[in-house]
């Protein structure tokens, strides 16, 4: 990463100009994309230049995108990223050789394209898995071109440079794996028997996927992940930590019902079942739909359902109270209006009595001393 800072500005500018003309967008828009991606990844200043360089120079990696038990929401979310030419950019940055939703080919022609791409880019292509994989009854619940999902995944993963599981379904089973799970829905990692990079979410934030792909493109490796395979830049913290309603949580201001006063005032949704306190994701910081932070469930007034977190999303009832991870609400809350001091009449009376007694005693003492003084003076006078 040290090399990044050495890449000079003009080089980045030139690279950006090349890509921009290739895509038919202006240079500024392209650099904005690079900078936004670098920020999402949490990379230091200068990384956007490296990204611009990589996007310009790298041979577009071949991507094979598999769909299994899913709703295509992940793909839809990616396509609806509202940066004007992002869809173009995705297709320019990568060579999407197989994607059932987006490819023009159909039927056996499509499968032939996949096999051809796999053979041509053996050991170099990126495999993206969208959707859970059913294993019950030998995987008959999901077949593509007569091949079961299990077989297709194993076949494609064998020669892939990297496997990325997009969405909660392929990351940990997601919604299809909800009890009683009749089809035996499993995650890509379960089938492959190894940790893969996962981008959970229902749907996941498109920028978490894009940033992961661009990281691979720029640095030749996938970003750092946690024990569940989630990139740390996106899933390193729980939503609650950076939630815009966090101050209300700390102050004990909660919405208790949909539409009640607290709900209308924008108070914390914890008591409505918000799973923010036990869900790892960056929803609260990057938002959805490219319109800023107002566009994510909690901002819209609905509690987080914990879709990125295995064991929370689709498992726990939506309105069940979250288990607090790493923090607990205080036992009591400070008053809104503090008493500005008390008046103590008993104490004032006692103080007055003591002062009076002391003054009296001092006066008596001084009087006696005075008599002694006089006596002494008389003695001397005699």
């Amino acid at each position: 990463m040290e090399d990044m800072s050495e890449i000079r500005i003009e080089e980045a500018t030139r690279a950006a100009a090349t890509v921009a003309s290739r895509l038919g967008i202006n240079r500024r828009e392209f650099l904005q994309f690079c900078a936004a991606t670098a920020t999402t990844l949490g990379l230091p200043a200068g990384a956007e230049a490296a990204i611009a360089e990589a996007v310009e120079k790298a041979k577009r990696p071949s991507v094979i995108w598999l769909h299994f038990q899913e709703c295509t929401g992940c793909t839809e979310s990616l396509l609806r990223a509202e940066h004007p030419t992002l869809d173009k950019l995705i297709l320019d940055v990568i060579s999407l050789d197989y994607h059932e939703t987006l490819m023009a080919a159909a039927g056996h022609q499509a499968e032939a394209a996949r096999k051809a791409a796999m053979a041509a880019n053996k050991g170099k292509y990126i495999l993206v898995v969208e959707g859970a994989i059913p294993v019950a009854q030998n995987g008959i619940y999901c077949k593509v071109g007569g091949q079961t999902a299990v077989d297709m995944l194993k076949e494609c993963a064998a020669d892939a440079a990297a496997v990325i599981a997009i969405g909660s379904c392929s990351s940990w089973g997601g919604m299809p794996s909800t009890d009683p799970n009749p089809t035996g829905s499993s995650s890509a990692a379960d089938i492959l028997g190894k940790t893969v990079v996962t981008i959970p979410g229902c749907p996941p934030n498109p920028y978490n996927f894009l940033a992961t792909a661009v990281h691979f493109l720029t640095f030749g490796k996938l970003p750092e992940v946690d024990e569940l395979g989630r990139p740390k830049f996106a899933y390193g913290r729980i939503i609650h930590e950076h939630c815009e309603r966090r101050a209300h949580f700390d102050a004990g201001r909660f919405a208790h019902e949909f539409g009640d006063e607290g709900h209308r005032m924008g108070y914390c949704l914890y008591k409505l079942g918000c799973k923010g306190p036990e869900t790892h994701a960056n929803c609260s910081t990057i938002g959805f739909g490219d319109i800023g932070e107002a566009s994510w469930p909690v901002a819209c007034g609905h509690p987080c359902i914990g879709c990125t977190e295995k064991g929370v999303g689709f498992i726990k009832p939506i309105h069940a109270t979250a288990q607090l991870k790493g923090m607990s609400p205080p036992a009591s809350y400070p008053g809104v209006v503090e008493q500005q001091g008390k008046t103590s009449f008993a104490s004032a009376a006692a103080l007055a009595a003591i002062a009076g007694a002391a003054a009296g005693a001092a006066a008596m003492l001084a009087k006696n001393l005075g008599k002694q003084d006089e006596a002494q003076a008389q003695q001397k006078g005699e």
Partner: protein
Amino acid sequence: MADYAHAPRPLGGSLVTPVTLLLGVLAAIAGVILLYRFIYGLGAVTNLSDGYPWGIWIAYDVVVGSALACGGYSMALLVYIFNKGEYHPLVRPALLASLFGYTLAGASVIFDLGRWWNVWHIFWPGYAQVNSVMFEVAVCISIYILVMWIEFSPAFLEKFGMRNAQRKLGKVLFFFIALGVLLPSMHQSSLGSLLVIFGQQIHPLWRSGWLLPVLYLTTAILLGFAVVVFEATLSSIGFRRPLETKVLAPLSKIMYGLLVVYLVIRVLDLVFRGALGAAFTASWEAFWFWVEMACFVAPLALMSSARARNSAAKLFIAALLLMLGGFMLRINGFLVGYMTGEGWHYFPSLPELMVTIGLIAFEILAYIVIVKKFPVLPAVQPATR
């Protein structure tokens, strides 16, 4: 220096008298309240609030209490630094009063700490905030308490006949005596510095800036002498001993000079800061300012002539007024003139007051017990009475 005609002797006599019984009861009440406070917290006992995070336990017990306990410091300064041997008989009793005054002032800090079980953090290198004035005060007072016990220990060693230990201690005692003069000079001025950092939160009448340490140190020494006069007079009457006016009269001359110096600094400071106008407004602050000033100015008249200084009555009243003045200066700075924001007010609760009274009672009780059992007060020559 050791005038053996005045060699200290235990007073003897019964420890159980109506006075000691009363003092004991007051101290016990304070003990019960403190126990309650340590278990149920400050809010259960005191009238402290967010606006007044400290009350009389700090303003009186620590700030005033330690200043009133400056007798030992003032006398050591006079006898050992200015080499005035004639006052030597006053040193040990003064030191005894200081010993308890300071020890209890140090303990009072713990009473006032919300999380008192963390008190050791002050001294622990990882926790200590070495840039804080309070840190200076805390460390300095703690060391001084220790030094004073060492300074006073010859009285105990004498009583228990540990001649050898006493001789060895005597060889190094000068070091502790020097420390005993240095340390209070540091923290008594630092108690004034505490108000410097309050800045605008202190009423203009007491917002003397960098002069605050000077004012606090001067009055602390003054108070030390006043307490010596007060305490010597009271023990003469209480224990039916001859008055020590002969020693006290020249002492009051020193007090007179110091008082003039203090008043000049105090008034000039007010004039040059343009704060004197605030004294002529109709406010509580102005009222208590005049009470404070009256307590400092009246002794000036009472001690003006040699004749007046030789009058035990006038001297006693002057000392009393000076103590009251020093008390008011500190209470005014730390509570009356402490402006913490609109609407905040503070008056001690009864339990709070009882703790302070109990502490004073304990101090006097311990003084009585020690002078009766240990050689503190100078022996009385039978001829004088």
